């Protein structure tokens, strides 16, 4: 896929794809915004779910923009693919860099909430890291519905 245009494949559910996105903060925000537009167009989404999904995707993009290419000297790229199949939304964010490992010096109360946030927001989160890169996979089940286990947090 070479053009950054809205894509859909009615035969196998809706898709949102962005490839070779340069991993910086501006592009992370732009892709997040485009993803949110696609998600909104996907149908009648619960307001809280919508917010959760966009935030989780943002955190994955932000981690890549901030950490993946820290030691490489130049920003690398991000590939994002979101697939809606039935009522399940699966989003994969991949980079070819290596996330900086957190050390006591980098840990502080004001940093490092991206991963805990993704874990709290998504129904399933996997992060696969290898020397070749990192892939984050977020899954949201029943993503049209309000979460049943979250009554305390439902309205924020």
């Amino acid at each position, binding site marked *: 896929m070479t053009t950054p245009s809205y894509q859909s494949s009615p035969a196998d559910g809706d898709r949102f794809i962005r490839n070779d996105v340069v991993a910086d*903060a501006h592009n992370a925000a732009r892709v997040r915004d485009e993803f949110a537009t696609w998600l909104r167009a996907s149908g009648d989404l619960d307001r809280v779910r919508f917010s959760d999904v966009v935030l989780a995707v943002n955190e994955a993009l932000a981690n890549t923009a901030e950490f993946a290419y820290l030691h490489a000297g130049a920003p690398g790229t991000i590939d994002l693919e979101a697939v809606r199949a039935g009522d399940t939304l699966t989003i994969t964010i991949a980079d070819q860099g290596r996330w900086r490992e957190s050390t006591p010096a980098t840990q502080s*109360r004001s940093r490092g909430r991206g991963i805990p946030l993704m874990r709290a927001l998504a129904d399933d989160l996997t992060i696969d890291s290898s020397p070749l890169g990192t892939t984050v996979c977020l899954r949201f089940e029943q993503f049209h519905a309000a979460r049943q286990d979250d009554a305390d947090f439902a309205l924020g």
Partner: protein
Amino acid sequence: MDEQGTATTAANTGCVINEEWFGRTAVISASGVVDMLTSPQLETSIAASLTKSPTAIIVDLSDVDFLASAGMGVLVAARDKASSDIGFGVVASGPATSRPLKLVGLADIVGLYATLEEARAALGE
């Protein structure tokens, strides 16, 4: 597509910060998006207000559409930076702001209020 401007345009990625004082209470309001790109603006504004010797700082996120972890980090850092005799609170409600703050356990750390009126009542002015 018939949608409101804030939903789909490129301008949706920006942030506007405002500073207002009620006596010695500084209220820093943000509107729009607070993420890794724009959170430095919020950080700068809070830092500037700290130099003016407030007795309390309230960060009002009522008009924020999107709050990323970068923005949350600014709130926690500001809370930690303000001395313990400066009151501190955050105004937020809704799925985009107060919900994620609660989900990662920050509501109690920063002091979360649903409205500016409640925050001002709790913090003095």
